[in-house]
């Protein structure tokens, strides 16, 4: 059932992507609204898919790569939807939904496996810890996409070769604000998520694992994104350089999500 819902959400994300692209090239209010509606429906379908896994393990589906990636995609969709509604901009939709489609489609290559129940990994505090940290990653992924669009738009403006879609993209200032909003969301989520992790671990074991590679890299992520927020207001950095920094920061996030999870950390798995 969870897998069927996963396929349904992928189909809805693909349809949403096509509508966003259509709306970018031939703007139509209803096609734009349909794109948003399809995205929201995809998010809903994916929620039920995640829920199916959650009821087996009685916790957030973090335990394997499949569940973790699925949760990441779901939170990316939600964060983008919130930003789209807040800033009233649909023109970044094709890029975000393309990332969503690629992400969710890649789940097809990963064995879903049977969810396993791990006794300590449950409870509200733990669920918030996992969800908030994954949400932070999703928000950083979104700021990465927005920064890339910023860099392309900046390059187009400088080259003076304006394509058909140029007039449809948001202004540099709007992209900059959207990227910063996204990073703010990510940082706040990461700060709360990490704190809850510490509290949960202390309750469980009575210690704090400050030396764990995952914790160290997470701290590094907080530092580089905080630096981005500060530098994006600085005379020398504001604009394209800050966007470049934001895009580069995401490399550390991906490093944390993949290499650190798989090979370095002792007790963190896929978040």
């Amino acid at each position: 059932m969870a897998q069927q819902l996963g396929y349904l959400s992928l189909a809805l994300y693909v349809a949403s992507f096509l509508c966003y692209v259509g709306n970018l090239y031939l703007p139509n209010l209803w096609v734009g609204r349909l794109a948003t509606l399809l995205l929201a429906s995809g998010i809903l379908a994916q929620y039920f898919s995640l829920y199916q896994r959650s009821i087996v393990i009685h916790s957030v589906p973090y335990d394997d790569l499949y569940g973790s990636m699925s949760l990441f995609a779901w939170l990316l969709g939600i964060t983008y939807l919130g930003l789209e509604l807040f800033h009233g901009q649909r023109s970044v939709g094709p890029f975000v939904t393309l990332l969503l489609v690629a992400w969710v489609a890649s789940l097809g290559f990963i064995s879903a496996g049977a969810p396993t129940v791990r006794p300590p990994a449950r409870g509200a505090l733990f669920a918030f810890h996992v969800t908030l940290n994954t949400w932070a990653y999703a928000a950083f992924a979104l700021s990465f996409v927005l920064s890339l669009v910023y860099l392309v738009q900046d390059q187009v403006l400088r080259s003076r070769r304006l394509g058909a879609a140029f007039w449809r993209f948001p202004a540099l200032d709007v992209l900059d604000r959207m990227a910063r909003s996204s990073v703010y969301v990510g940082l706040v989520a990461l700060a709360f998520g990490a704190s809850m992790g510490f509290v949960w671990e202390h309750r469980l074991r009575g210690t704090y694992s400050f030396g764990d590679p995952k914790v160290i890299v997470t701290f590094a992520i907080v530092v580089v994104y905080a630096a981005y927020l500060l530098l994006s207001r600085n005379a020398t950095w504001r604009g394209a350089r800050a966007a470049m920094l934001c895009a580069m920061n995401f490399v550390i996030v991906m490093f944390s999500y993949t290499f650190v999870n798989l090979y370095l950390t002792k007790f963190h798995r896929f978040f």
Partner: protein
Amino acid sequence: MASLTKTNAGQSGAIRIQVALIGCNHRTAPVELRERITFTPQQALQAADELRDRGILEEAVVLSTCNRSELYGVPGDANPTPAEAMEDYFRSFHRIGRADLAGRVYRWTGPDAVRHLFRVAAGVDSMMLGEAEILGQLRTAYSQALDHGATGPVLNRVFQGALEVGKRVRSETEVGTRPMSVALAGVKLAERVFGNLKGHSALILGAGSVAEQVIECLRNRGIGSLRIVNRSLDRAAELAKRVGGEAIAWESLETVLGLPDILVTSVGSTGPVLTRELLERAIAARSGRPVFVVDLAVPRNVAPEAAGLYNLYLYNIDDLGEIVEQNKKAREAEIPRAEAIISEHIAKFEAWRAALEAGSIVDDLRGKFHKQRELLIREKLAEMDNVLPDERARIAHITEELIERVLKQPSDKVRHGRGMRGRLAGLEALRHLFGLDEDKE
């Protein structure tokens, strides 16, 4: 039980609805003639009154802009082909001889007239394809005529349709999105950097006609504050007073150069007025915030090397000219989509017109009453056990007669009422009050 439905198709009055148009525009008349045939708002209302008072038209709207003067009307029963009379009136109003207008005036009737109006509203008949101003001018002309009582059901329907077409074409196609003038292209590009211009400031170097065009565009796009620097401070002050800006002395240029987000230059000079070093200092003074520079002067006012400065976006007149040319082609490519929207709305209008002309509204109403009557009788008779067949027939007959009596007065009024306008208004009211459109949907 016999069928309780009875129709009397064709008993309601047949009405012939015609929309007529005569006019001149930039394609048919040179500016020397166009400026002689414009109508002020007061004259437009006066003309609408006179056309109706003389019995030439029952409804009238005059649309007059710098590129077109057009009379739209609905002829009355007495004068079903009013084009000749409308043109005579048009000539006499402006005291122009027949020879002066020969071959300059276009005449359209029926769907062609409606299509013309819809194309005007969409901006595809404009001198500058897709221009936005015409929709506002059309709205104003219609509102004034409506408030004055010069319109009726037909023109209300046609002009409301035209406004809807104009709105849809601008939101669903790119006919009106891309800038078509160098000044507007510069301002729209600045919006690609800053988004909404409300909280931003602009500095204009020069107080000539080019500067004025840019200022007008900036004002239309809601620029927050405006400063004008010119070698002649008096001229800058005069322009600043007119457009609501602040005049700055030429000597203070470097001091204020760090303030604006948008910098537009169009001053006569033999070499660059703004060097790379000067602009570098200006950007530093504004903490590295981006600045958008539009250089509209020839020879150029801004040193080309300045284009390499971080967070400075520089466009000269050739860059903007090329963009305008690309945009023109892109807008032309959108015409078929605009025409499709126009055709869709013409079909809607024609369906409405056909319904009124066929007098089917009273028939539709009768049909609705009969349907209700049939349902009611079935429902009530089902509750009564001992009603004989001939009593049932009598009940059916009485209720049929009741419906015919109730419908007689409205039917007569829309058939034989005074003036087509009144009859149409009656039909429209019936359609609206009894929800006949909803029933069809």
